[in-house]
């Protein structure tokens, strides 16, 4: 008699031809249980942080003012309301224009830094990144001081030119409205486009140029047949990023938009001004659509990109050409001066008594007394929120990326988690903020169709700093998850199997190997979260209360109240804080990064 457990000689084993598709389940030990529970917990967190609030937002858009479900009536009304439809066209117009200008400017700037021998490359690079440290309102405020009705350039330096040249030489660019918004958005999106294009340009294979040369191609021909095709994905990607950023930006249109409405300001007006939450969420959903389209288009492009650059590629050799260098040097200088003049205007505005009537210096604006803000309190609130967001967010995001990337269990759960982790990339901050009001402010949930009511366990978060921190983490989740995933992918994928074979629980290898090896990326995530939490306005504008007001919100409040100088001063403090934090970070982590780099050599 042969029982199942009897050992058979391999030759005696009966040949089976059918294949059972089910897999043998492994018994799980303590460490595996813990591991699996963490994966489930991550998915649960993503559902609570993203999916449920979004569902609430959608449900809200289907309700009328009295809270009755009315289907798509709001959407129909939206497209019937001329002013609302107009602002959709406005938004599209602004974003497309911003995308094009930003990409063109950033392309030549990146080209100058990567492909010419101009001086001051380091300086130009730092200046290009400067706008990242500022809230978008700052660009608008700076423009007002330069090009507004009483701006330095509009008035020909307050009549100074008239005295010298006999004519005011003032230039009025009609700042308030589309002009001001587009300029602000271009400044806002320039660093992002520059970064993408810089990477794209620097990975071009020089052998292609050599091949073109041997075929006798001229300069123009090489530019259009080699340079442009090899960075076309970078160009498109940069355009999408600039497009989405300006499509969903709230700060700049709020400050310099005047009567020119865009979707982001519409949402704010509907929700805060008219208390029309249903229409607010309807506009919010409309705001997601183009972002979602651009998001998927970008993903598809990236999939196609893969193999144009190989390890055999040769890096670009810069040919000597003094005239080209001179032209590009002037170009970079002009752009840098443009960026620096904004900061200059902000510094001047924060330090002079009454622009443009009394130019004596004062520190009065930096005290924020007698203005619509609450003194320096919002600034300290911002510091607190940014610090906690950086710490908590880094832990959650990096560990989330680790669970998705470095596990062999629960493939479907992990794939779903990855999708949810990437989704916030397509979610504008305003939408996240709005969805959070609906979700966290609701005392009871009604499960549709079955009539079950559940008390909201998260309602206590409403009105606290925690909800702002949570919104920030989700808002910046995807970008940092990609950073973390990229770093994790560089690590040998067999670290975990080897540890398992040695009976080492996963968390030990995570702490002893994965974290030390990924430290540069982890720190980069932390600094990104801090800087962006300091400057962000969109997600938090709906979530703050009198006690949890942030610096960026106080800027908006102060400009609303006409206190422009203190608003400029607050912007300046934010920028300086961010620069300071970045510089300290660079010095403090130099050693860590050097050591990590030495390990990564193979």
């Amino acid at each position: 008699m042969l029982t199942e457990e009897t050992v058979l000689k391999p030759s005696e084993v009966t040949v089976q031809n059918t294949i059972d598709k089910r897999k043998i389940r492994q018994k799980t030990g303590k460490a595996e249980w813990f591991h699996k529970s963490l994966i489930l917990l991550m998915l649960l967190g993503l559902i609570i942080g993203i999916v449920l609030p979004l569902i609430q937002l959608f449900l809200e858009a289907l309700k009328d003012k009295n809270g009755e479900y009315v289907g798509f009536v709001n959407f129909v009304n939206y497209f019937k309301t001329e002013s609302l439809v107009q602002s959709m066209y406005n938004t599209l117009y602004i974003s497309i224009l911003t995308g094009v200008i930003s990409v063109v400017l950033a392309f030549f700037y990146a080209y100058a830094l990567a492909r010419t021998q101009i001086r001051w490359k380091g300086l130009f690079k730092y200046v290009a990144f400067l706008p990242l440290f500022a809230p978008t309102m700052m660009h608008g405020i700076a423009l007002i001081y330069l090009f507004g009705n009483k701006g330095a350039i509009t008035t020909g330096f307050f009549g100074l030119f008239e005295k010298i040249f006999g004519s005011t030489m003032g230039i009025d660019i009609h700042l308030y409205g589309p002009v001001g918004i587009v300029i602000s958005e271009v400044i806002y999106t320039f660093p992002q486009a520059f970064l993408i294009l810089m990477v794209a340009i620097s990975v071009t294979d020089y052998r292609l140029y050599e091949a073109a040369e041997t075929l006798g191609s001229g300069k123009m021909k090489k530019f259009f047949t080699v340079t442009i095709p090899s960075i076309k994905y970078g160009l498109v990607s940069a355009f999408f990023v600039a497009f989405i950023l300006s499509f969903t930006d709230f700060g700049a249109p709020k400050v310099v938009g005047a009567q020119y409405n865009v979707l982001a300001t519409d949402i704010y007006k509907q929700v805060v001004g008219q208390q029309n939450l249903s229409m607010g969420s309807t506009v919010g959903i409309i705001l997601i659509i183009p972002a979602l389209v651009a998001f998927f288009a970008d993903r598809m492009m990236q999939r196609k990109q893969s193999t144009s650059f190989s390890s055999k590629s040769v890096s670009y050799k810069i040919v000597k050409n003094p005239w080209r260098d001179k032209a590009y040097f002037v170009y970079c200088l002009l752009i840098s001066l443009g960026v620096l003049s904004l900061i200059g205007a902000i510094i001047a505005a924060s330090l002079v008594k009454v622009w443009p009537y009394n130019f004596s210096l004062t520190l009065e604006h930096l005290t924020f007394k007698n203005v619509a803000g609450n003194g320096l309190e919002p600034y300290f609130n911002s510091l607190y929120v940014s610090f906690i967001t950086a710490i908590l967010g880094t832990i959650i995001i990096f560990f989330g990326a680790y669970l998705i990337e470095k596990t062999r269990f629960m493939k479907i759960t992990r794939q779903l988690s990855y999708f949810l982790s990437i989704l916030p990339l397509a979610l504008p901050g305003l939408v996240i903020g709005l969805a959070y009001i609906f979700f966290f402010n609701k005392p009871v949930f009604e499960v549709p169709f079955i009539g079950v009511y559940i008390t909201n366990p998260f309602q206590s978060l409403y009105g606290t700093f925690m909800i702002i921190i949570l919104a920030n983490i989700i808002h910046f989740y995807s970008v940092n998850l990609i950073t973390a995933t990229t770093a994790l992918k560089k690590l040998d994928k067999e670290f975990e199997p080897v540890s398992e074979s040695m009976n080492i629980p996963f968390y030990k290898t995570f702490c002893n190997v994965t974290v030390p090896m990924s430290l540069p990326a982890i720190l980069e995530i932390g600094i990104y979260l801090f800087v962006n939490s300091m400057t962000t306005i969109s997600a938090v504008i709906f979530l703050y209360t009198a006690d949890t007001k942030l610096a960026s919100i106080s800027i908006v409040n102060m400009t609303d109240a006409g206190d422009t100088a203190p608003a400029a001063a607050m912007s300046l403090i934010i920028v300086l804080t961010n620069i300071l934090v970045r510089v300290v970070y660079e010095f403090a982590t130099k050693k860590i990064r050097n050591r990590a780099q030495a390990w990564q050599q193979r």
Partner: protein
Amino acid sequence: MEELLYIQNVTKTFGKFVALDHVNFSVNKKEFVCLLGPSGCGKTTLLRIIAGLEEPNVGSKILLEGKDITPLPPSKRNFGIVFQSYALFPNLTAYHNIAYGLKNKKLSKKAIDEKVREALSLVHLEHVKDRYPAQLSGGQQQRIALARALALSPTFLLLDEPLSALDAKVRLKLRIEIRKLQEKLGITTIMVTHDQEEALTMADKIVVMNNAKMEQIGTPQEVYEHPKTPFVADFIGTVNMLGQEGSTIAIRPEHIHIMDTQTKNSIKTKVKALEFRGAFYRLFLEIMDQSYQVSDGLLAVDVPASIVKKLDIDKESVLNAELPQNHLVTYA
């Protein structure tokens, strides 16, 4: 000989793709077994299933000393593994890489130190113990990875293409070294490789795989001399495939005799090309006898350089080739 591992009916599907189709074989204690096959044949998947890193389909069974270990996670299987990439922890020194697995075993510090030093001396690398992996050569990294796997005194050892990332000279040296070490420790070893020479020189037993299925098991001599299928004959070494009266016969180039005189078994051929290979020439012969069809068009024959000189063989020479019966393998 005592059997240690049984691989029974192991099957693995990824969606619709069948990666392993009812694979059966056994591994004896102290034996060195090679899983050999082209890329994508399923050999690495099989190794990962033995390790517990992949879950096989229902019906598969892996027995370790008679006990079913199929549902056990890797940590409960007590094996050592060396990957192609070595997977050494870059931020730990060679010493701490080896000590890493021992630390979880509730040993005293002294006992750990002893074991690490023992493992280091096994691979003759005591002098690099304080270096980081990036400061070691490829061959040294490989040996540290081996030492790390062996330090835990595993029941069996799994090697996943351990030599393929190394350059040719180091590879030849390590082949001998690994085999020596394996014999010295008497540790049962399963190695995955796509390099037939590696399998022939190192293994006690070769499992040849193709398209998710096992083609043949046997000693290196058996698979080389008596390949059971045309695939095995072709994959291991060089082989001529001839068609004769509806059946296929296979014969290796070095087994064909070349003579200047005709015998009753010989075939008349003409030299079409010849390649100098150092110790021997490889001739490519056109068969003038209509009853044979060579699948590649020409018959490859290896002839010692001395005979080529003696018979004054050159292009267009007419030669008699004899195919010895004992070296012919016939397939239906």
